[in-house]
């Protein structure tokens, strides 16, 4: 049996607001194999974004362990600096993150954005135009983010993620700000490419249809704490 891409064990995260502590994620455990997709659902405020942040090291858990590509991250303050460096290096080369919007540097053209992301990951930037073309926005390469539509921007964001050839894609409502039709198109491209390149995908979404398209499903339940 191959080792899984990602393993999460007993993960907990709480926020302190005022003198109240609000547990958002409690003792969560799951695994994800290479090439597999996982849908994260739950009502607003249930902790989807928080989990994604934990999984790419932008937030640190209060308890639990995350194992990603054989690297073990234990909760706790020991070795914080090394952990931060290891997470940063993973984000640079292995984890592609897609947000609902604002995934592009506004001062760079679409092509420059893709090149930028590829170069940061240490990949060959010359394939960037190909990626834009594969996402059907090849002719918009020279435009700036504010000169294209929201759907085109999300396509460009996907081009950036695939150009870095990640092992894991974390997508936080990537189609959340798009109309139904465009959302379907963008999601189609995402699943297609993910399947073809065999990387893992964790997709936080409110969209039941989109969630159903994933191989696995994790419901974070109701708004915790309140």
């Amino acid at each position, binding site marked *: 049996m191959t080792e899984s891409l990602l393993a999460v064990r007993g993960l907990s995260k709480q926020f302190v607001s005022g003198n109240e502590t609000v547990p958002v994620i409690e003792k969560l455990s799951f695994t994800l194999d290479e090439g597999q997709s996982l849908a994260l659902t739950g009502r607003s405020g249930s902790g989807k974004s*928080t989990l994604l942040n934990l999984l790419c090291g932008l*937030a640190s858990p209060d308890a639990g362990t995350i194992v990603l590509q054989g690297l073990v991250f234990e909760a706790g303050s020991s070795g914080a600096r090394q952990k931060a460096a290891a997470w940063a290096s993973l984000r640079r080369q292995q984890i592609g993150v897609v947000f609902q919007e604002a995934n592009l540097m*506004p001062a760079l053209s679409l092509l420059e954005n893709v090149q930028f992301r590829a170069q940061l990951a240490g990949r060959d930037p010359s394939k960037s135009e190909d990626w834009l073309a594969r996402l059907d926005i090849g002719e918009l390469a020279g435009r700036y*983010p504010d000169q294209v539509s929201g759907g085109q921007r999300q396509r460009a964001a996907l081009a950036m993620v695939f150009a870095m050839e990640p092992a894991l894609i974390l997508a936080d409502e990537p189609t959340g700000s798009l109309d139904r039709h465009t959302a379907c198109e963008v999601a189609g491209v995402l699943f297609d490419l993910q399947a073809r390149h065999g990387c893992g995908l964790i997709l936080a979404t409110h969209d039941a249809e989109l969630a159903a398209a994933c191989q696995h499903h994790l419901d974070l339940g109701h708004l915790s704490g309140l």
Partner: protein
Amino acid sequence: MNGSRSRTPLLPLARALLSHYRRHPLQLLALAVMIVLATMLWTGVNHLTSQARASLNQSEQAVAERQQVLRDDGRDLVVDDFVSLRLAGVCVMPWLEVTPETGNRLVGVDPLAAHCFGAGTGASQVLDQPLDGKPFVDMHTAATIDALESRLYLLTPEITQAADLPDGYHLKTFSVSPDTGELGDSFLLNLEALGVLVLLITALLLRSVYLLGLAQRRDSFALLHRFGVPPGHVQSWLLLEILSLALVCVVPGVWLGRWLAAGLGGGFGQALDGLFDIPLYAGQGQGWITPVLVMLAVVLVACLGDLLLLRFRELFSLPVPARSGLATVLLVAGLAMAFLAPSLLWVFVAVALVFAGAGWLTPVAVAYVAHWRADRMAEPLTRWRYRELAVLARRLTLPLVALQFALAMVLAIQALVTTFEDTFDRWLGQRLEAAYYIEVPAGADGNKAAQSLTGQQESVPGLQWHRVKRGQAQLADVGNASGLQVDVFAVAPVGSLIRQWALLEAVDQPWKALASGQGVMVNEQLARRQKIEVGDSLLLTLGEQSGMLPVLGIYPDYGRPVGEVLLNSETLPDGFVIRFESFSVTPGELEIGSITGALKQLWGVEALAIRDNGTIRELATGVFDQTFALTRAMTLLTLILAASALLMMGWVFFSTRAWYFRLLEVWGMSQRQVAGQLLRLALLLTGGIAILALPLGVWLTWVLVHRINPLAFGWSLPMAVYPAFWLQLAVLSLAIGLSISVLMGRQLGKPAATPVSANAVVGGER
């Protein structure tokens, strides 16, 4: 339609519009502080300049062609003298100078007694002014003031001859002040130029802060528009709002400005008083109305100018290439005009054009260069940084241009002040060459004193002295028989005191030649106006004798407008009329008291007029230092204001941009690396602005020194550049960049727990 329009209730509208400031009280505060500071800076500079100018003018008027009556026994004049002179039929006017315990010196005059002066004399011109204004007050008022010091002079018109006077009195020229030359005037003109620049810079800053608030309120304006409030109402409200804020802030600003000027003006006045015995008459200064109205207008134009002048708006909304083209045309036209301008007015127009052009062009140029560099960068982060720089340059246009102008101004003022300081120093050195200056009383024999000092010179180490005789001579103009009247400054012996004078040009061993009476020296002004060069011969008429005398050297006069000839007084013919005689003495190991004691005995007088040059020099140097230091402080204050405005705007702009820096973190850069990028970006920005400010500053210095000064006064100061100061400014602007990045870095430092709040993300400009 009309009905509903007029029924738009004002109160809810006001409440809705004011709610912005309730949410952002700091913005309101920033705007208010900006108005107060702008007003303070401008009023300060302006008040100081106009006050100093007024007192200079008054003193100039007051010294025009006057003579006074003195008692032969040297005692102070009293009212009885006035009575006996009037009884003898002599036209005299009392001139009572009083120094009140607080405030500046005042002059009490009697307008009734002045009528015998006739029209056209300086005195009657002064007295044509209403007497209720300072510094000239009615005799009676002056006499009742509690004075620290008061002295009565009796002035008499030029037509009065010595023979007209009763026994026991003689005539003497009445001189409130020797001419300051135009050095003071020139400094004032430059201060005035500084004032205009300060106004411009503060207007830019005001505008930037105001537009920032306006941009944030755009949404609520749009909402109001959707609710059916006509845009005109919103605009009138904005007008009302800024007008009331301006009114509230301008008044304390003017007050602070006058307070600031009091510190400065005191310094300038003291300097004039101590150095030239020019009393700094309590100047009328400026009222309150003018500065308040000017600042209100500036605030209105700066904040709502484009809204008020709709046609102007189209100019601002021109496409970038057209705008840059226009800016380039302005810049080039301004540069050319500054070079060719035949009069001061045109130079000022040229400066305005150059600043307008430079201000418009700077952000565009920064953005252009940034894009150009970005296109050539293979390294992704560098490319991204240059692209961000272009965005910053465009988004922060106003504060950046204000910073550029402030840097340029500081540069120019620094160079100018240092030059003036240097010139004043050398000028002081020339006029106060000896430690003491002793007037030869009327009727006393200067020869006896000269013999006595010559006798002492051998036995007293360090004793240096010379005797000065002043009078006038006719200079035969080339091809003009009528000739030119010049002042004569005759010195003997030509000793070490006079030899300290710096010469602009000279023959070999000029002082030796002067000492042996082989020629004369002329001042810079005379040389320039008459095109006299070293080696030329002048046909000079001294008394009844005429002779050809070669020019041995040209000495600087630092703006003294009158032509002057320096010669060895041993060569003066007998018929030469000595108008004034004095000794300059550095006592060396001797006490000055023993010298003056001997002179009093020799001349048989009770008191001598002695000037202690050391004290004057100390005072003058101290006071000039203070004046210059305050001028520098003023420009530095403007710079700090510009820097804090940039900081503030940068902060607000960056908070809309912070997300994209966080994106870098998401993409795998450490917080440290992101902070490093931020730092480099900020340094690039302020460093670039400093580099762009440098040529503007040097050009401004050149204009002040080589264009404005010669056009206004006919002489120019040496222009010096101070690269060490450039370095200081560069360090300063980098420090501004550093503080921006530190401030912004703190925004980044917040935990990036929810980078997903994409809906709140704005600032996606490029």
